[in-house]
């Protein structure tokens, strides 16, 4: 009997210790429509609560789509507001280059805008349709080589050029001249594949150049894996979601960091309730700092995780 009691206590302790947790937010911005506030429409019944829709980090600036207030708020590295861009319409995705040029994708995914550093109002233009987007679009990114690019969930992409779009054969631009995709393999593993930027990846179904691969394994059932970014030291960051419960769905989110030689060097784990819905809410800057934003009752919470705060790889 004692044996089982000890066993139960040990098991409970292990379970508690295994529960993911995160640090306190770096900043919390109150809800509202004033300066220093972000908009939230919550408790609307049968509609997903709406708040800021996207975050991007580039150079020393943090860009947040304050969707409800139809604006883009630019923060400094200290978390103070440095610039506000009037989007005038809902924005599904955004990114910026190191000089402060911002590219926006409208919520309807049918218009885009390139806002120069000296501009404060976004002017949208239609996105030309492309066969690479037959199955939906995902996000806009500012690729260092190609400029503004829209990427699709199925690996397709188009470069955005004023007046037209140019289909690309690459998948997710990761920055630093590379792109990649993750593949769900088994209930507990995925493979992340990375190609150099100029090499066609999966969008043309050729696979004509072999990617470098990392197999990511998880202890809980794996939901999905997605490469996020490569920083200026060549470290690859991968977003993972695993299931801590089947139904209702309960998800644990984590970002893993891999060194240029492919060795895992760190990870960070959140309870998904802290950040849900985590959808385009995570980004990594060029130096490897991880930013995560989430809608909390008190306001928009923003975490910034320094490189040294990463939990060492197992």
């Amino acid at each position: 009997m004692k044996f089982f009691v000890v066993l139960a206590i040990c098991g409970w302790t292990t379970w508690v210790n295994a529960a993911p947790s995160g640090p306190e937010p770096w900043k919390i911005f109150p809800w509202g429509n004033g300066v220093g506030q972000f908009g939230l429409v919550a408790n609307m019944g049968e509609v997903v609560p709406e708040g800021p829709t996207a975050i991007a980090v580039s150079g020393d600036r943090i860009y947040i789509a304050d969707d409800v207030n139809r604006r883009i708020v630019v923060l400094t590295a200290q978390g103070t507001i440095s610039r506000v861009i009037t989007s005038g319409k809902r924005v599904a995705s955004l990114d910026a280059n190191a000089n402060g040029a911002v590219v926006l994708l409208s919520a309807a995914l049918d218009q885009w805008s390139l806002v120069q550093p000296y501009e404060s109002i976004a002017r949208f233009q239609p996105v030309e349709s492309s066969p690479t987007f037959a199955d939906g679009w995902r996000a806009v990114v500012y690729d260092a080589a190609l400029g503004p690019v829209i990427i699709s969930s199925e690996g397709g992409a188009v470069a955005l050029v004023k007046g037209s779009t140019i289909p690309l054969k690459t998948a997710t631009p990761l920055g630093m001249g590379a792109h990649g995709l993750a593949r769900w393999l088994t209930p507990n593993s995925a493979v992340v594949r990375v190609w150099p930027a100029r090499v066609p990846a999966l969008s043309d179904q050729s696979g004509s150049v072999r990617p470098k691969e990392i197999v990511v394994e998880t202890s809980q059932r794996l939901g999905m894996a997605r490469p996020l970014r490569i920083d200026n030291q060549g470290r690859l960051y991968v977003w993972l979601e695993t299931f801590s419960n089947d139904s209702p769905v309960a998800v644990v989110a984590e970002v893993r960091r891999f060194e240029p030689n492919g060795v895992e060097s760190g990870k960070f784990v959140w309870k998904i309730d802290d950040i849900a819905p985590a959808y385009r809410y995570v980004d990594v800057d060029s130096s490897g700092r991880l930013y995560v934003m989430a809608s909390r009752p008190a306001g928009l919470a923003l975490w910034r995780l320094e490189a040294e705060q990463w939990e060492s790889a197992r």
Partner: protein
Amino acid sequence: MNTFRRRLKAILLVFGVMFVGDAAAITREEILDRAKAYAEHWWTITAKNTVADCSTKYECDYVPGTYQGLPYDWGGYVEIEKFDQLLLDGQAAGSHSWHGVLSCTTGLDCSGFASKCWKAPHHSTSTMYKITDEIPSAAILPGDAYNKAGSHMVVWVKQAGDGSPVFYEAAGTPHKVRLHTSATWSYLSGYKSIRYHYVTEVNADAPGAPDNPIVIDAFPFHDERNTLSTGITQFDAYSCAPEKGELGPEVLYLFSLKQAGYFTATVADEVGVDIDLHLLSAPNANSCLERHDAQIGPVLLNPGTYWLVLDSWSNSSGVSYPGPYILDAQFEPTGEIMDPEDEEPPVPEDVVIDADASGGSGIDEDVSTGDDDIELDSQSPEDTASDIGTPSPDVTNTADAPPEAEFFDVAATGADGVTQLGPDTIGTNDEDAGVTEVGGGGFWLPGGAGMGNLGASGQTSGNAPINSLTETSKAPSDSSGCDTTASTRPVSNWLVLLGLIVWGTKLRRRASNSFYIDGR
């Protein structure tokens, strides 16, 4: 026993559906067709459709123009045809919860959309339990739903290649009915997986059902279909690969040969769908001659009758991947008319690759060996992985591979020129059979110590203009040095490549503990 229970359940379900009336029954394929119709419907509004006569605080999301996907409308529950008519009548397009339920707007809300997909009465997310059963999330199938009472619901389609959920919904930032292909699982945190009571799992009369196989009466044969069209899961595993799960629904084809010849069948499926080929000598799973996730053959067949079964693969957790597919089949007669009872037809010399290892006829064993090897990656770590945007690993891919000049261009723009074309490359990753290794010693980073050739190429390419990239992709294929004659010598080339795959797989196994795919 499981099969018996499944059949019993299906029978009871069919009778149950019959009892409540045919109007309530709906197949999974029909559910998805209806969802797609809502998401892809084009509609046009004028200025009058942006104003709601019954509300002063109404603000329309749309400006006059043409749009795709019905608008989100709080409390909305409407058929497409009715929606079009209401627009013509001057109703406003869509609304939000803060507008309240308006009688002068039209469209669908999330539960109204799901209800319409199921041909069910309008239930809210809070009352969906009345017409659905909760099921394990791992068992969800296309046409089921994820629901969060009082919040939102979506109609399930599939898992994308990276594992992310793909579903139809009436909501989201665009506020319209859409196929959501870029969500993450956290989007569905707190949602329960549910199944509509009257989803018919079987359609015994559908073409391809066991009692109604599709007859292949001429070659080449081409067909595009969906395994959900039958919903029948008569076969769960096959004698030629009993360890492979095929728990999803299947479609049967039937063909008769009057003379011996080489039969080839290929299947292509999309992201999140995994359809496998099975060649049977009789309509039962114990008569399996060949199995593959992408291609069967060329295999030499005697005159006789054969069944080709396209079955939906399932992973180790029992999750199946049914869906649409494209089937192509060819037959090349040997010119000899044989009696099925006669001895086996002669085997061409170059067909036998490893007769000793096969211990049998050579052809079948070798082909199946290649299949098994391929499926180490393409099927279990399976072709869910390979499906993402990439056809399943097969020799056809290699033969049809686009130009590989990109690799040389990469090398020319900064890579150190380490090109690895050869058996170790071909075999190390089945789905990339015949591909080119980018650099032998690097990883993804451009430049820098220890970053290797790939990085250098990436750095250079990183500054390349778009035009040069486009030009690169159009480079001729013969510069790669790969076998461009493959298409003119199909059989021998296939077999050579199969042999290389087998060889490469052995090398790969040897290097299985190495991080790099190339086995360094």
